[in-house]
């Protein structure tokens, strides 16, 4: 099935610089429709008012972490199917396993490059 490049992508990170980097990389990949949120709570509010084709989220944010956001999303019958990629500096085994158990679709450790982001997005959404 072809990837819908117009499907909105939600980038969740409390560092504006990182949001800007991911936004530019997504733009290079062909995703023009990108929204932003600075923590899990704001992301959840946006997800409840708009359907997103992909969520790319940091882990360590205040007041709601990306991990809490992931669990909220997977516990919500409507939001549950949303593809979710964690992009984070949290690189302990327990973090990766906890995210996987909570239902994350893929996991990227910071710092990362464009190729890694492209590969993970493709693994979640399909080749584009």
């Amino acid at each position: 099935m072809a990837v819908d490049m117009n499907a909105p992508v939600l980038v969740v990170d409390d560092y504006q610089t990182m949001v800007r980097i991911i936004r530019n990389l997504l733009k290079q990949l062909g995703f023009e429709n990108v929204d932003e949120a600075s923590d899990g709570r704001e992301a959840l509010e946006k997800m409840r008012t708009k359907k997103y084709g992909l969520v790319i989220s940091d882990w360590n944010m205040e007041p709601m972490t990306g991990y809490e956001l992931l669990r909220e999303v997977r516990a919500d019958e409507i939001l549950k199917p949303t593809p979710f990629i964690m992009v984070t500096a949290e690189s302990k085994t327990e973090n990766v396993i906890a995210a996987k158990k909570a239902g994350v679709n893929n996991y990227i450790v910071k710092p990362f490059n464009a190729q890694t982001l492209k590969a993970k997005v493709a693994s979640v959404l399909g080749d584009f």
Partner: protein
Amino acid sequence: MPAPEVATKVRDAIIALKGADLKDPRLGEVLNLASQMSEAMQMFFSSIDRTLFDEMRYISSYIQRTRVEISNLRPNDLSEDRIPRAGAELHAVVQHTAEATNLIMAVAEDVMAADTSDPAAYQAFVSDKMMEIFEACTFQDITGQRIKKVVDTLTHIEHRLERFASVMGVEDAELEETSEDKRKRENLLNGPALNGPEVAQDDIDAMFGTEGPSMDQNDLDALFD
């Protein structure tokens, strides 16, 4: 009235009674016994007083030594100068880094969006933009110096606290978990690992089956063992 003084008065009273013309010899025996008890009491109270005095002198010298050690810590210098200055240095590092990163990204965005129809103009434009990137990278030298100052301050505090703990014989107390600690523990907020990620991207890819064989739940569970 201090205890030794009381004992002296009792003894004096007994001596006075013994000197009086006592008709009953048993009264003399009682007075002798009372006299011995009085002397024993006086020795007892004297020893207590000396012990208390020694204890008070030890406590006083301990407090004095503590004052000197705390003074050597220079707490006012730390709280009013060194720590605020270290905080300001770190704040400046964050600010400079963010400014430089934003400038570099803005330049990169400009280059990506540039008109390429005129190769000569495009080349000149890109050259100018590359110079802006080089200039922005000068932040690294300044932030390096600022971070070194912060490290020096932390080392200074570490050495003084180490000496204080050693001289005073201080041992670490058990700390109760704060709500912030609890939140960090429950949300696995470990922060970035030193010397690169603890789990490499390739290993994570193996867990998710992005490249190579995927880990199933048993493989994941085995990582906990």
